[in-house]
């Protein structure tokens, strides 16, 4: 084997090793069924929480203050989750969440203002 040929084989070996390490350490580029299921469940979870939290705006005036405070706290907890969504969803659900939180806070503030 010539010197050039030996260098070429060594180069290939390095490349293969790097690829193997990268493959072993990196997250899979495509979701496994279990991973996809977990992602879908997480997705469902925030949406379910959003729908539960923001379903009470219609009767906010009739809710006890403690419940309103709890809803505001749940909105605040959900906010960072919504901010992690893709751009389109983030724009829509950030506004929706902000609006519903604002109604609850508005009712609380109205009560405190007397």
């Amino acid at each position, binding site marked *: 084997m010539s010197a050039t040929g030996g260098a070429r084989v060594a180069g290939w070996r390095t490349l293969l090793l790097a690829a193997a390490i990268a493959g072993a350490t990196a997250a899979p580029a495509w979701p496994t069924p279990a991973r996809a299921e977990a992602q879908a469940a997480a997705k469902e979870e925030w949406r379910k929480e959003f729908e539960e939290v923001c379903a009470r705006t219609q009767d906010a*005036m009739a809710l006890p203050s403690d419940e309103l405070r709890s809803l505001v706290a749940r909105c605040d907890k959900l906010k960072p989750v919504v901010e992690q969504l893709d751009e*389109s*969803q983030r724009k*829509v659900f950030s506004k929706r969440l902000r609006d*519903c939180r*604002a*109604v609850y806070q*508005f009712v609380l*503030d109205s009560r405190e203002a*007397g």
Partner: protein
Amino acid sequence: MKRTTFAAVAAVLVAAPGLVQSQAPAARKGRPLPQEFGRVVLDNESTRAGVPPVVFEHWLHRAKFTCRLCHVDLAFAMSANGTKVKAADNAAGQYCGACHDGRRSMGGRAVFESCRAGAARPLSATCLRCHSSGRDAKPQVEFATITKGLPRGRFGNGVDWEKAEEMGMVKLVDQLPGVSIPRQSLAIQKDFALSPKVQGMPEIIFSHVKHTAWNGCELCHPDVFPAVKRGTVRYTMTEIFAGKYCGVCHLSVAFPMQDCQRCHVKAVQ
């Protein structure tokens, strides 16, 4: 004397929108035609992307949907170009794409699909149904057809939408499956009177019933009406004609404020 005061204030109010509009560089002169009232031209991205801006007709949508559905559930902002809609958003099923997904139907007609990012050029006839600014595009549904037979209004679209709904002539959809949160019907809040500052002006009766039916709570509170205690804010017609408070809707989409007696309804004592 009281009548004279009322007439003078009414004259000022009728003239005021023209004065306000004339200060805005993009505003057209004079009153819009009935079919143009509520028209919004959206150009966050269009011109930059080399396509005509979108012309959105409020009359076409308000004849079918509550304000709440689009401005709360679909998260459309209350000011033109405030939403920053992109083609990618529509393609992802948000904003216009929530309804205009090519799968839904309305009144037996398929709802055409809204944009897809990277749409082929030249734009298709479907694209040009919305991206129609500066083009002599004829809508598939004519204003005259939609408004035919509806109770007349004096200003705006020339339609009394409120009466049209009361009479069952328009049936507004308030929930979009898969998008809206199923809600219980709203507990009806009491109407209340607001005393005008001008002597001789009839009192304003604010109808919570009418407003909540179309808007829910979050469309107005706290963004449009942030006061948490009644009587702490002095609403002025100057501010309202400048687009604050009632003016957010009642300048350009809901019946315009030239129609004084729609709000100032209580007889002068």
